[in-house]
Each structure stands twice: as C-alpha cells, then as structure tokens.
C-alpha cells in the first residue's frame, strides 16, 4: 500500500523533482512559443489569404464588371469559369456574380447556384460581412472563407462578386504545425528531463555518497572516509574533504580512547593483581597455621574440626578472590572450537558441589560436533550458570543442564534450578548493558552475562515450573574465529 505522504512532491528525491521541473519549464516555454508561432502563422495565413483574395477579386472584378453592368449571363459565367482555373491557389469552391437585387447573374457552378436564384442566407450574410469588412470572413468550422467585392460604375452599383474558398489546407497546415510543435516539444521535454536526471544524479553523487557514509556511520558508529576524487566543483570537494576530516578525527579519537581504555585496563589489572595477592595472602597465614595444627594435633577431633573449618573458610575466601579476578580480567580468547566433551568435563567439576548439596543432576548434552564458539568462554558461562543453579537449588532438588546447537550456528546452554527464582536485582543483570559487578550476590550471573555478550549472544530467562530456567545463546563466530577480549 502506497503511503499518502509519499505522493507529496516535496518528499520526492531531487533526482526526480529537478528533471520534472525542467520538463515542466520546457513544456511551458514550448507552450508559450507554440502559441506565438501559431498566432503568427494564423496572422500570416489570414494576411496571405486576404492578399490572395484581394488579387483574385481585383482580377475578377475587372473581368466581370462589364458583364455585370450588362447583366450578361454568359460573359459573367465565362469570366468566372476561366478564373477558377487561374486561381487554384485560392481553392475557390464556388463563386458567383450577383446583380444589385441580390439574385445570381451567373456562378461558376450553375448546377448548385443557378442563375436567377439567391444565395443561401448564411452565405449571403457572410458575403455582406466580407464586403463591408473588405477582407475574407473565415468559418473555421466549415473550413471556408467567404470573399466579396461590390461592383459599381461610379456611384451606381452593378453587382457583387461572392466567392467561397476552401481553407481546409490552411487549417490542415495549422494542425500539422500544432502536431509538429507538440511532438517536437514533447521530445525536447523528454530529452531535457532525461538529461536532467543524469545531470542531477551526477551532481548529487558526492552528496549521496556522504549521505550513505553518514547512514553507515550512524549504524556502525565509525565514519568511513570517502574518495575525494568523485567531487564535482569546489562545493562538493569541500564537502568531501570536510567529511574525510571528520572521519579522520573520529578515528583518531576512537584510537585514542582504545589506547586509554587499554592502559586503564592494564592499570586495573595491576591493582587487581595486587589486591588479589593481598587477599590471597591474608588467609594464607591462617591456613598454614591450620595445617600445622592438623599436623601436630590432628588426632584431637575437636582441634581437627576447628582447623578444617578454618581451612575451608580460608580456601573459600581465596576462591572468592580468584573468582572476582576471573570476572575482572580474561586473557586472550581461545581459538579452539567448542565440542561436546568440553561440557561433559563440567559435569565432573560440579559433581562434588552437586553431591555436597544432595542434588540430582539431569544432564543432556546434545552437541554432536564442533561449533565455532570460544570453548573457554562457553565453559565458563556454563560453569557459572551451573554453580549458581546449584547454589540456588534446595537440597535434594534437581538441577537440569541441556546443551544443544543454536539455529543458525553456535550453541545453546540451558540450566534450570529448583530454587525460588531470581531476585529482581539479579534478574536485572540480564538486561543491564554495563555496570559494575553486584556487591550482594549475582557475581556469577554478572560474569556469565558479560561473557555471553562478548560472544555476541544473550542470556534470557524462560518460564519454568520448577525454578529458574536460564538459556544462554552462544552464536558462532564468523570464520576464522576472531580473538575475543571478554572483558
């Protein structure tokens, strides 16, 4: 369905509007000049006809006036009959000599206008007008011109010559001129419009190029320079040069930002490493002490339990610190493709946690072959989701894992727990574009979300009857698989 506003000429492209304007202007000029030509042609034809008629009437009057004065039928007819052959250019259809009383003395066509009769009223009226005006009276509908000349001997009228000429050829000539003008001007308008299309497209090519680059830049966020040689004239050259300068400045700013970001990340890594070293070092003393205690007094169940609890907590702290570090920084992405075995390893890794919590693991790994997904990141995503699910599930609950291939390439990881569901703050992590890691839980999900986004995928929560059902879509990377900086 055509939108109505698309019919508004103001919304039409310049490449259409300008040629149309050119065509309309050409047609307007052609119409004006055509009118002038036709008007001049009509005047010339009428002047020519009038001159021809005057010469015709002069010659005929000389020949028939004595006959009219004597009312000599034969002499009048003879003069008319001879004149018909001599004035072919006038194309007389009929002509007659009238007596002063209006009756026909003789006509060149006696069978249609016999002597002694009167002319038809319409023809007689036209003859009266022509005689009074001294020039032909034209009847365009009938394609005739009526001529008339009064004959007199001194002040005494002796008759009148009346002729009816065929002006069909004159009118046909006008129609032919009109046809020629219409065809020629139409052709000119089309030619100029076509030339206008090409010219305008040629003139607008640089501007159109900049427009396309702007559209692309708006989509990609990265302006691409253009070839300045396509510019026409100083205006377009300046436009293209300005665009290229803007693109260069943007690229320079982007490079600078990337460099600053890299430096900042390195600085953060340094601080994180220092903090991790500090955090790991903190419990180390206690842990070593606990190990010593176990070594010396391991037989005492109370002491042993206390030392083991200390060890568990200290190692837990270290594990948390390491997890935070992993979530903060990742090294160069693996270029190894993901295989089913990679997920099956995770089953072993989580087996202890699952057993410790008394959970049942429903494991379905449907990956059949390799998919072009970073295996390290994919394993980390799946492991985070599994550990989160294990943590969220109540004892004796069922933890479900399913891996399959993503339609269009990639992998899908689906983890379902038996927990009470995601808290709103944690679920918001699924939709937050950026942000710091949560301070009160949800670090694993935050990490998984960022890892999945780095792969170009997403994590969504689907409805479930038993708890939280999270699905991570890990699309395949374009081949060859690019290195990915996770964070």
């Amino acid at each position, binding site marked *: 369905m055509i939108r109505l506003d698309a019919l508004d000429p103001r919304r039409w492209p310049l490449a259409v509007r300008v040629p149309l304007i050119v065509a309309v202007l050409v047609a307007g000029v052609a119409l004006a000049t055509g009118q002038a030509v036709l008007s001049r042609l009509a005047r010339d034809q009428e002047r020519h006809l009038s001159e021809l008629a005057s010469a015709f009437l002069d010659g005929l009057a000389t020949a028939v006036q004595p006959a009219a004065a004597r009312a000599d*039928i*034969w002499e009048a*007819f003879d003069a008319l*009959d001879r004149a018909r052959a001599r004035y072919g250019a006038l194309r007389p259809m009929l002509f007659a000599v009238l007596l002063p009383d209006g009756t026909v003395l003789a006509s060149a*066509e*006696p069978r249609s206008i*016999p*002597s*002694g009769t009167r002319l038809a009223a319409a023809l007689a009226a036209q003859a009266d007008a022509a005689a009074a005006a001294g020039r032909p009276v034209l009847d365009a509908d009938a394609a005739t011109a009526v001529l008339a000349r009064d004959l007199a001997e001194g002040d005494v009228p002796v008759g009148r010559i009346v002729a009816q000429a065929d002006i069909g050829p004159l009118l046909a000539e006008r129609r032919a001129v009109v046809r020629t003008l219409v065809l020629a001007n139409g052709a000119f308008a089309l030619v100029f419009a076509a030339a206008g299309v090409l010219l305008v497209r040629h003139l607008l090519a640089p501007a159109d190029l900049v427009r396309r680059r702007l559209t692309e830049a708006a989509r990609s966020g990265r302006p691409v320079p253009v070839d300045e040689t396509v510019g026409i004239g100083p205006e377009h050259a300046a436009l293209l040069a300005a665009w290229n300068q803007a693109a260069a400045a943007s690229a320079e700013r982007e490079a600078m930002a990337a460099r600053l970001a890299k430096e900042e990340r390195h600085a953060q890594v340094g601080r994180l490493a220092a903090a991790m070293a500090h955090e790991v070092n903190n419990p180390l003393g206690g842990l070593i002490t606990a190990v010593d205690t176990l070594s010396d007094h391991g037989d005492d169940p109370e002491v042993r339990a206390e030392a083991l609890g200390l060890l568990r907590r200290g190692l837990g702290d270290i594990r948390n610190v390491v997890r935070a570090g992993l979530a903060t920084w990742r090294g160069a992405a693996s270029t190894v493709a993901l295989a089913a075995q990679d997920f099956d390893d995770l089953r072993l890794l989580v087996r202890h946690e699952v057993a410790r919590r008394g959970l049942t693991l429903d494991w379905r790994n449907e990956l059949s072959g390799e998919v072009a997904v970073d295996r390290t990141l994919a394993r980390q995503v799946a492991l985070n989701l599994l550990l989160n699910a294990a943590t969220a599930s109540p004892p004796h609950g069922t933890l479900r894992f399913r891996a399959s291939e993503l339609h269009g390439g990639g992998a899908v990881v689906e983890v379902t727990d038996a927990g009470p569901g995601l808290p709103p703050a944690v679920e918001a992590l699924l939709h937050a574009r950026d942000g710091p890691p949560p301070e009160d839980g949800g670090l694993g999900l935050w990490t998984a979300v960022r890892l999945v986004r780095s792969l170009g995928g997403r994590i969504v929560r689907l409805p479930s009857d038993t708890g939280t059902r999270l699905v991570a879509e890990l699309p395949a990377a374009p081949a060859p698989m690019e290195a990915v900086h996770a964070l």
Partner: protein
Amino acid sequence: MKAPWLIGRRALLATAAAGPVHAAAPVRFGLTPVFLDSDLALLRDLGRHLEAALGSPVQLVKRRTYQEIVAMLLAGQLDAAWICGFPYVRHADRLSLLAVPLHRGRPLYQSYLIADASLDVSSIDDLRGHSHAFSDPDSNSGFLVTRWLLSARHERPEGFFNRPFFAYGHRNVLRAVGAGLADSGSVDGYVWETVADREPAVTAGTRVVAHSEWHGFPPICCLSESRDGPAARGLAAALLEMRESESGQRVLETLRLDGFVSAEPALYDSIARMAAEVGART
C-alpha cells in the same frame, strides 16, 4: 489528288492576273464562330496556309459577334469573311459567295437543339420554361432556326424560355449547357459533331434533342464590288484548292471538312425563307 507542286497554282495565277498584292497590305480575312475559331493552333495553321497560298501576309480578324464581322465586311474593312448563312441572306444584295465548305461531302449542315443530358426532353416543346443559350443573334443554326420554330408556335424566345441568353459562339453554347448554366441551347450541328469528336468532354453533358433541316453551310463571302479583286480571287482560289496541299489538308482535317467548293446563292434559300417567315410573323 493533284501533285503537291500544283498547290496554289490557281491562286497564284488568279493573283497574277489581277496584279500583285502589295506586300505592305495584308489580306484581311474575317472569322466568326461558325467554326472553331477558339483553336489558336488551327488559326495559326490556317493563316500560314493562306499566306503560303497567296504569297502575301494574311491578317485573320476575329470579333466577338457576327454583327461586328459583318459590319466590317460591309464597310470594306475586310477583304473576305467566313460568316453565317443568315447574315449572308440578309445582305445577299451586297455580298458574293467565294467558297462554301464541304462537310461529309456536302455543303450542308444542320442546326442542333441540345439540352442538358440529365433532362428528360425529346422536343422543343419540352424545353418550355427552361433556360436556353443561343449562339448569336445573327447565327442561323444558333438562333434563327430555333427562333423560326418558336415563331411557328407563335412564341418568342424570351417568353418561351426562362432567361435565354447569347453565348456568342457555338462552343460557348456547348460549355453553357454542359456546365448547367443553361438547360438547353441552339448550336451548329457541324460544331457539335466536331467538338464531340475532338473534345468529347465538352459535349459529354449535352444531348441532341432535335435536328433541323439541312441548310447551306456558312459561306466565305466578300463584297460583291470586290469579288474580282486580287484578294478575293486569291482567297477563293486558296480555299478551293486547300485540299490539294499538305498544309491545307492538315487544316481541313482539323476542321473535319472535306474542302471548299463554289456555290450558288440558291444554296441559302432555305435560310432566306426562314428569315422571311420569322420577319412576317413578328
């Protein structure tokens, strides 16, 4: 047929007997529409033939009406003239016959009453109320015969016909009737036949309604007082021997005539009788 070298011998002898014709005084020969005087090529050939036969210039004189030519002839302004039998009988006391044409072997011709071919008429009586074209008031075939027919009915042309007029030439009468200017016309039968033969388009629109009696063919006449003059004798001899020369035969062929012969005034008695009857009835 005589040998070509004999051409004009009699004419030359006649001229020599009468004395030389002065080179600066052309023979003046008057013509009327009793024949196809509108054929300029014919006139040129006739003039050349007569000049060759006479050995002197010949001036062919044409006028619009019979009356003008007859008046010039009677006034001595012409040496001879080809006139109609009607003016001849009217001025027979002053005119002499030099030669009479032979048409189809006889010095006779008829008057034709013609009409528009589209009219359903079979006699002069059917032409009452129709327009009519006469040739000339001094023409036997083009006026007198019809006038005589009407007088026998106690009619006059202007009362019997609707707007009768004179076309001053038999060929003009044919044109008038053919074009529809007149419904009917009185015309020389010889002219109608010749035009029908040479220009059938002119007579195509006409139809012969009635033929008259045979009358003496329009003669070549001169003043009786000039009958023995060199010009008249030379002309008479040239005409009488016309068929004996190639140029004369060419002229005769064009005229559709067989030649010229001498004739007696009695040849025109029928015309004189009609003229007398018409005069008596009016």
